[in-house]
């Protein structure tokens, strides 16, 4: 059986950052990713990122992805693509399916950085072709350069909904409206302003009621909702659209963490069920670490910093760096995480993360 020191599941921002930090200290690292290219969702993020100027703010997500790949290569990280990790066993061992065969890899330490999946929303007609995840639309336009449709209704005004609406406009589609069930826009005001000045209405206290069409979506019926999210009768409106994009949140992909026996908690502010971890990103399962959206839905910068903490902690536990150096390096990443989680958009997540660590220690 193949043996590695540090096996990472997921080659997105969290997994790659952990790989880079650990490999920089001398750890032999292998990253497994089921996709045909690494980088997770970074290579479809064509916009400039927020954050602090010391840590990649103002740089487009695609370029942050390229930098991570370059660093990973520089430090000798092995990235194994088209490799689906389907199981995790005592040892720890990973069950992997790649190149038409199934095999196991034994590791001293494992990091799960599997990311998140998009939530769906059920409404009449939601199974018609043309109802897609907003992330899927973003993959189509920015990776494959194909428009999913010409006239789009976006459901959800979080940053994902707002940013992807704008990118759909940049790709040449029309966004007929963004609907948001809450009475306010949930993403950043600056993203909303960018859309509004292009003439896209953002309808708060509105949701999609129905999609209609023969073979695929031809129309969407939207409706106003009250504070209990109950539709107000008589407020229905009909929009001629061929695509309905759902940007209604993400859920951590915790399957492997469940399989590994990690204790999981339901934390709504972080997107649902997520594995509990300590401040080294270590779960309750021996030698299993986690980082990124799997530990709670945030964004690429927080995933990068969490990955760094995990990578440094792994290098420390394997004896590659002493605890004083590890403490210093982890503290830098943690300070940055603290800064990213400040303010009204981040404080709920910051508090939820503190609770998460407390619950791991005192169940």
């Amino acid at each position, binding site marked *: 059986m193949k043996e590695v020191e540090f096996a990472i599941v997921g080659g997105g921002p969290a997994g790659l950052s952990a790989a880079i930090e650990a490999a920089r200290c001398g750890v032999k690292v292998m990253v497994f990713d089921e996709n045909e290219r690494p980088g997770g969702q970074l290579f479809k993020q064509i916009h400039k990122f927020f954050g602090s*100027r010391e840590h990649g703010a103002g740089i487009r997500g695609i370029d942050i992805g390229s930098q991570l790949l370059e660093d990973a290569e520089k430090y000798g990280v092995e990235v194994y693509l088209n490799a689906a990790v389907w199981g995790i066993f005592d040892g720890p061992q990973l069950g992997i399916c790649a190149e038409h065969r199934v095999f196991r890899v034994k590791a001293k330490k494992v990091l799960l950085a599997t990311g998140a999946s998009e939530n769906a929303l059920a409404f009449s007609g939601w199974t018609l072709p043309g109802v897609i995840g907003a992330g899927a639309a973003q993959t189509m336009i920015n990776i494959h350069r194909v428009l999913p449709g010409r006239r789009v209704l976006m459901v959800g005004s979080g940053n994902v909904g707002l940013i992807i609406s704008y990118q759909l406009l940049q790709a040449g589609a029309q966004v007929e409206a963004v609907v948001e069930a809450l009475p306010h826009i949930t993403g950043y005001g600056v993203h909303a302003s960018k859309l509004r000045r*292009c003439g896209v209405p953002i309808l708060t206290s509105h949701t999609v009621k129905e999609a209609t069409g023969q073979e695929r979506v031809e129309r969407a019926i939207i409706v106003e909702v009250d504070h209990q999210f109950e539709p107000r009768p008589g407020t229905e409106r009909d929009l001629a659209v061929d695509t309905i994009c759902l940007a209604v949140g993400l859920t951590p992909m915790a399957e492997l963490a469940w399989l590994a026996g990690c204790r999981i908690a339901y934390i709504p502010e972080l997107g649902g069920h997520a594995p509990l971890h300590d401040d080294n990103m270590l779960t309750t399962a021996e030698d299993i670490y986690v980082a990124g959206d799997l530990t709670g839905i945030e964004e690429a910068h927080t995933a990068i910093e969490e990955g760094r903490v995990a990578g440094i902690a792994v290098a420390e536990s394997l004896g590659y760096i002493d605890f004083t150096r590890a403490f210093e390096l982890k503290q830098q990443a943690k300070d940055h995480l603290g800064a990213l989680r400040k*303010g009204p*958009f981040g404080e709920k997540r910051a508090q939820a993360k503190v609770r998460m660590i407390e619950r791991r220690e005192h169940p």
Partner: protein
Amino acid sequence: MKRTLKTTGILYGEELLKCPGMPTRKRMEQGPVAIIECTQEIPCDPCVDACRKGAIQIGEDITQPPRLLEEKCNGCGSCIAECPGLAIFVADFNHSPEQALLKIPYEFFPIPKANTKVLALDREGKVIGEVRVLKVSNPKKNDRTPVLSLLVPKERVLEIRHIRLKESI
């Protein structure tokens, strides 16, 4: 319901004028100056380093909205393309006796050419009228965020925020 950035996506009246990145009327009348339309506490600060004059301040806590030190700002526009929220504009109220010069970020294809007329849009995307593109600036350091210099009616400096090409619908 009260119209605010949070409910509409648009900065209206007082919310805009109270914004710490907003120059005073007096400063605007003195010549080119940045207008930083960033009011929410979000973790972001690249504008601070973009300014060589030290005219943009955020402080230790990067979620604080940027403050414009209007007496230090010379309206050079280096900050425009650095803002990930595309929320910085530069206005030169005294460009000519009749017209102001307004610089806006524009991340759409096709990029308009200098000396062409385009449709000016307000904060809601409504067409205000035709304006002329005086210059298109897209150096490497803008990282693919072209900045358009538009000749606009003086009274429209706080209204025009986007453009559309005339041939596109």
